[in-house]
């Protein structure tokens, strides 16, 4: 699976980078985003949902960061 590591990237640059990564893949592709706890995990999923993408899952990893699984919707 395509994974984008956005740990250590501040808001809103993490969202901007996630959005650019999703632009690069075909519709229906599932992408995994690694996000820090706090602001990033609060904001990025919501913003990507606002863009029309489908949130498939959000799990906290043992190391403390979050793994957001998202399906690209739209061209």
């Amino acid at each position, binding site marked *: 699976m395509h994974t984008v590591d956005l740990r250590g990237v501040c808001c*809103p*640059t993490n969202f*901007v*980078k996630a*959005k*650019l990564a999703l*632009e690069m893949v075909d519709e229906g592709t599932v992408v995994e985003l690694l996000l820090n706890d706090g602001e990033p995990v609060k904001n990025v999923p919501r*913003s990507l949902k*606002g*863009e029309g993408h489908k949130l498939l899952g959000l799990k906290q990893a043992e190391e403390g960061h979050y793994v957001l699984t998202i399906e690209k919707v739209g061209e």
Partner: protein
Amino acid sequence: MLTDEQIERYSRHIMLKEVGGKGQKKLFDGKVMMIGAGGLGSPIALYLAAAGVGTIGIADADVVDLSNLQRQIAHHTRDIGTPKVESAKAKMTAMNPDVTVNTYETWVNAANVREIIAGYDFVIDGTDNFAAKFVINDACVLAGKPYSHGGILQFDGQTITVQPGESACYRCIFPTPPPKDAIPTCSRAGVIGVLPGVIGTIQATEAVKFLLGKGELLTGRLLTYNALRMKFREVPIRKNPRCPICGDNPTITDLVDELDAMNVCDIQNNK
């Protein structure tokens, strides 16, 4: 592919649903020709450069004068005596080194306007005289090139976007220039300094939207603005079937200068 620095610089664009990385690329690939580097041209130049419009052409034969600085915000006190196109280019590239600025240190006229606008996607009229406004309209209509008209005087401004063949052009509204003595210029009539900021910024917005292919352009409606009463008004304008250039039986089929509409200083400069 955007660099990390570009991602940061354009992040507030990329975040927008209507822009994104793809839209930002459209702006990079966009070519906008702006005629006039004065009051209207200043905000146009600065905002287009800031937005990352990749190629910006800028035409003006004038040099910066002390009396310009009350409204022509791309020019600074130390630029007095410098060609306006050079002064504007310096600010644009200092703000955003990503953009290419082509300068044309000339007045536009029937002999050169066609060549100046060729190769650009969108044209912006930020000039201060009717001769230029008519010849820019005619050149854009004949070349089928979309453009934004803007005009200001005292406390009033107006702007309309023209999609040749599809929407009304400047001559659909004003078939010929006003009588020679009925034309006051900014230098004779005065202009409130913030006015070109409002109108020029709207014109730059139209160029950006055109390049993005998003939203609705200001076509088929003349937007007028009065700063004293703080009122915007929209006047619907249909294509005029009797328009001398884009009507059913056009009488203007080639570019000509409207000599009567020229300012005395323009005529001297065109010699």
